[in-house]
């Protein structure tokens, strides 16, 4: 075990994957010699050569097109999109191509060996073009898997599993935690399961559900609520697609209440899918409406970032609204 921050954990996972399988290649804007603008790919070019870790020209649609082709050939493609806000030029390549490749060919061809890494989320004074959380845009796309880690340990294990999973995975990294989140991480290779939520803390009065950087907020809010005598069950969804309905539904049947939180705007955010599914599965168990504590239905603001964020206070208020319904 070693103490690592989230960036180091990502870097360690990439080194593991590249060491173990020489078909693994890492590419994107500035990921080569420079090691990426956040330095997640530091030293990869030095270790594995310029052919396996390289800069691409500045074109996200090109990166994803290239990645699709490379993965369909059988190579293991790990493409970086520098900020999740800049993934949209690649939307067609991801939604129409990546996600439908295996399906349209009847399984003859696939891009299952593709992983897309991208930093997402706010809290870094980045405004509307360096703070977005676009998971819901992709979650409406059958064929994709979407994974979001909450800390370094999760990051390494989930990234290795994503790279090796035989489906294309969009791996979203909470950039606010890149250096802020530090923890023990095994130096060895290990994987954590995709498609499985994790109960981070058991409780009996309400289920709190989130993913990625938002997990910190949930835990903080849960502490506040516990101080008021509300017992919270805190769940990290980890995989947005396919998502673990069973773990969530089982928890809600126990607690009778659910609060979901994400930074992305409320309308059409992934919390809506969860709420829609859980109100059906747990109709007779729900003691209050499912709460969504999310970003406002505006672009992500700069000067008003603090006000916009679904912070622990807003989550706490949501918890109290729910238990006092």
């Amino acid at each position: 075990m070693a103490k690592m921050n989230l960036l180091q954990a990502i870097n360690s996972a990439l080194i593991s994957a590249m060491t173990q399988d020489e078909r693994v290649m890492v590419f994107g804007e500035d990921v080569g010699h420079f090691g990426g603008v956040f330095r997640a790919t530091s030293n990869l070019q030095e270790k594995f050569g310029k052919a396996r870790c390289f800069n691409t020209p500045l074109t996200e649609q090109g990166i994803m097109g290239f990645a699709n082709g490379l993965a369909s050939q059988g190579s293991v493609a790990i493409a970086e999109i520098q900020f999740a806000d800049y993934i949209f030029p690649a939307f067609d390549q991801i939604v129409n191509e990546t996600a439908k490749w295996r399906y349209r060919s009847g399984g003859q061809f696939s891009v299952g060996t593709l992983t897309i890494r991208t930093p997402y989320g706010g809290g870094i004074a980045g405004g509307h073009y360096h703070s977005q959380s676009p998971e819901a845009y992709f979650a409406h796309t059958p064929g994709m898997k979407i994974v979001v880690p909450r800390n370094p340990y999760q990051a390494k294990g989930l990234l290795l599993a994503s790279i090796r999973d035989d489906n294309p995975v969009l791996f979203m990294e909470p950039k606010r935690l890149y250096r802020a989140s530090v923890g023990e991480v095994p130096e060895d290779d290990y994987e954590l399961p995709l498609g499985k939520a994790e109960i981070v803390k058991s409780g009996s009065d309400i289920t709190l559900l989130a993913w990625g950087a938002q997990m910190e907020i949930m835990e903080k809010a849960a502490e506040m609520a516990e101080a008021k005598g509300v017992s919270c069950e805190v769940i990290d969804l980890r995989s947005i697609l396919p998502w673990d309905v069973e773990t969530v539904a089982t928890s809600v049947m126990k607690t009778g209440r659910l609060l979901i939180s994400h930074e992305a705007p409320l309308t059409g955010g992934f919390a809506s899918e969860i709420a829609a599914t859980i109100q059906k599965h747990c109709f007779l168990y729900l003691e209050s409406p499912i709460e969504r504590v999310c970003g406002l239905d505006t672009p992500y603001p700069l000067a008003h970032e603090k006000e916009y964020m679904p912070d622990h206070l807003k989550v706490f208020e949501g918890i109290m609204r729910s238990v006092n319904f």
Partner: protein
Amino acid sequence: MQHRNHLGDINTVHQVKLIDKGVVDIPMLQIMQPDGSIHSDATMPEISQELAVKMYRTMQFIRVLDERMVAAQRQGRISFYLASTGEEAASVGSAAALSDKDMIMSQYREQGALAFRGYTTEQFMNQMFSNEKEPNKGRQMPIHYGAKELNFMTISSPLGTQIPQASGYAYGQKMAGEEAVTICYFGEGAASEGDFHAGLNMAAVLNCPAIFFCRNNGYAISTPAEEQFAGDGIASRGLGYGIKTIRVDGNDIFAVFEATRKAREIALAENCPVLIEAMSYRLAAHSTSDDPTGYRSKDEEARWHAKDPIQRLGNWLAAKGWIDPAEDEKYLAAKRAEVLDELKRVEKVPVCSIEHIIEDVYDTPPWHLQEQLQELKDHIRKYPDAYPKTASRVKE
């Protein structure tokens, strides 16, 4: 000349010098004249009788297939078709210059390349009837072929997407040490997509052994080339990417063959992309959903009918004595019968059973898809008459 991909010193001029498209002349390679004779100063590529006849017969077969399937669509037997009439030399000639190991990523009007690789009449029919014998499992509209064993990537409708994909595929071939290239076909219309720019630029920078083969057939549905671009065709763009480029007469199968052969040689030897622009004309309607009489003249069509690539090769073969023109009608009649027979046979083959509706979305169907399938099957069992294609085969 100056490479501006470094920051060294650079020649200067002291008066404004406008660079305009006139500065480069990009002529077109032609080996065989429209009448089937070979230009006296041309070097004929080495092509055996067997290969030349195979090229010819493949073109003829495609012509027959196109005619029959357009008719079948009119009769309502298939939902859609798209002919390559007039452009057979471009796809057949280029495919003939490749190795079977080379990956083909096509747009949709390259049935000639697929037939040349060995796709059978039955396979064509299975695909067009979206039936259960089709390896793509009937998931795609007619003409969206795909055949793993022939190294023919399944076709995707969104235009241009295959262009950067071909760069990536070729990069993978190079990394795997394969003696193979990727050929990527696209129309001059698709070349307007951003993916074209990304794909060619990346291939050049990342040294991908790919052949980008543009079929410039003058139209993108109703949009004529002059409303598609203002430069000197697509070939002139190669310059901007630093990609070696060849323009070729797309109706001269020998020129197409030779350009592609040369391109492949360069791509493999130098690990780099090559761009080919084949000048041709879409004699057919864009597809069975289209009627070109509204946007172009009979005259224009007639001028291109006169350049028919099949006729041209036929004349050459006949002059050479490699085919007997009398055989032609027999061959065509046999192929017509074959197509009709297969059509009749294949249209009775059922579509895939309902279980396949959730397959291949992921490597294995996740629980939520299994649940959705279960619900669907229960529903079909309840209303079998409403789902005649699948109801009789719904199992518990």
